[in-house]
């Protein structure tokens, strides 16, 4: 079956805005994503190297803020929801399946390596910037946070600044 067309972007944006608004109304906080990655990573570090994490001040202070363990975190539950919601959306629009998307001039191997490198940079940057496109930029815009909005400008500004140098990854 052919995948269905994507939703009208403005309608999708409006719905996303309502999800965000509802979240702020109920919980007083916005959406996020990178924080969940952090929780999982910290959980893994604590499990694999308990001795080492006990000596790492950053992990120690994080554990003190999360008495129920790093996984009992709002964003972890939210991202589990994202997986469910995205999968459900994929199912009803015939988009589920093992696939790899890449630019026309690169191999699958290059694409995977680029995705890992890009992910690492994004992961590192999101910690430094205290949130990613969702937590800092989008949620920050909704509540008019100065920090969130300058992070957003920095993300997209830097994306445009570097786009030329990585065009071979994406364009013909």
């Amino acid at each position, binding site marked *: 079956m052919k995948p269905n067309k994507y939703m009208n972007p403005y309608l999708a*944006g*409006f*719905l*996303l805005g309502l*999800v*965000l608004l*509802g979240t702020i*109304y109920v*919980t*007083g*906080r916005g959406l996020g*994503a990178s924080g969940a*990655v952090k929780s999982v990573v910290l959980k893994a570090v604590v499990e694999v190297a308990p001795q080492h994490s006990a000596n*790492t001040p*950053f*992990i120690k202070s994080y554990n003190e803020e999360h008495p129920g363990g790093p996984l*009992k975190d*709002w*964003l972890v*539950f*939210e991202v589990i*929801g*994202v*997986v*469910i*919601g*995205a*999968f459900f959306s*994929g199912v009803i*629009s015939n988009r589920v399946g093992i*696939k*790899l998307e890449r630019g026309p001039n690169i191999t699958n191997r290059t694409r995977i390596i*680029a*995705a*890992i490198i890009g*992910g*690492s940079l*994004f*992961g*590192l*940057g999101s*910690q*430094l*910037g*205290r949130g990613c496109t*969702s937590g800092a930029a989008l949620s920050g815009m909704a*509540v*008019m*946070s*100065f*920090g*969130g909005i300058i*992070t957003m400008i*920095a*993300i*997209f500004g*830097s*994306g445009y*600044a570097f786009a030329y140098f*990585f065009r071979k990854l994406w364009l013909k």
Partner: protein
Amino acid sequence: MAPLVPYILSNEFNLIVALIAGIGFGFVLEQAGFSSTKKLVGLFYGYDFTVLKVFFTAGVTAMIGVLLFGQIGILDLSLIYINPTFLWSALAGGAIMGLGFIIGGFCPGTSVCAASIGKLDGLAFVFGSGLGVLAFVEGYPLFEKNYLAEAWGPVLINEKLGMSKVVFGFLLTTIAFIAFVLTRLIEKRVNNDQSKLPKNKVIMYSSAIGFAFLLLILIAVLPNSGRRLEARIDTALIRKDLTSSEVPADKLATEIVNNYYRINIIDVRSPDAFKAYHLPFAINIPVEKMSDRQWSKILNQKHKVNYFYADNQKLAKRGYLKAGFLGKAENYILIESSSDFKKLFSELTPPGSNASKKELNTYNFRLKAATDMKTLVDALKNSTEPVIAKTTKIKGGC
């Protein structure tokens, strides 16, 4: 009044809310096409601006909603989380994220969506972001200085730009609208697209943007719940037949010494004035902060009596009236100002030799009350446990 967590909904239930919010978030992101890396990256090469359209529309929608809810008084804007600003790390982090975006083709939320429907590149990106976080955690000492530098706290962009929230709302909505028009022109050029927007879409888009501006105008002209309350207080203040329960300083001092655990003494002046001098056991609730939710418990409780005071009678009365409108507690107002109270009890001067018996009695009463209050304050300062109430009764005086 929202936010519902943690007062109306428990923190445990909050995790269920997180799951539900996440389902909505993931569903919409995937429907919008954010699980496709080509669609995302199109933003940077001009062939597909879906990201900008979705992102800006969502941001503007939520922002207008937050403003509206705040204005009509169903959401307490002073309680919602504002991302704090750490200037350098926000800029550096953002720049690194932008680089990661153009190399990896995703951001964390979209990569999770992509991985959820089986995209291997999305999964690789998620794995990579784990590595990046690990690098930050392990290398934290290296980043710490930059990470914590220029901490400005939860500042708002409209404050930085010197405008009101609603003006910024207009500005952002206008920018979004211009961006939508411009990006459509760019998209058409890059993709060699000659098509025109169908008429029904033109109508739909213009009514949507019109509705957004209409809401903003409404927010701008609607008196907010705070202003309505102030208006009620103003009307009450000019009424001549206004009666308020007033107590003199000596009576309050007696209450403090004997029943300090049954009363709240509320200083409605500014925090600075409070810091300089305040009555024993007083708590500071500046009159403009009185409607903050943290104080609603005090203004609504039934077990203690609230006493209000300020530097001048007008301010004290304002606080007293506001407390009456906001809550149900039993309220009183101190007749004397805080400086009078200080003079009466802290800067006591012995009466002259030809003082009357009454004056002498008053002096003795105040001296004893002042000592007792000091003892009580000291005793309670040194222990976190409630001190057993002293049963000594003050004799004489009033």
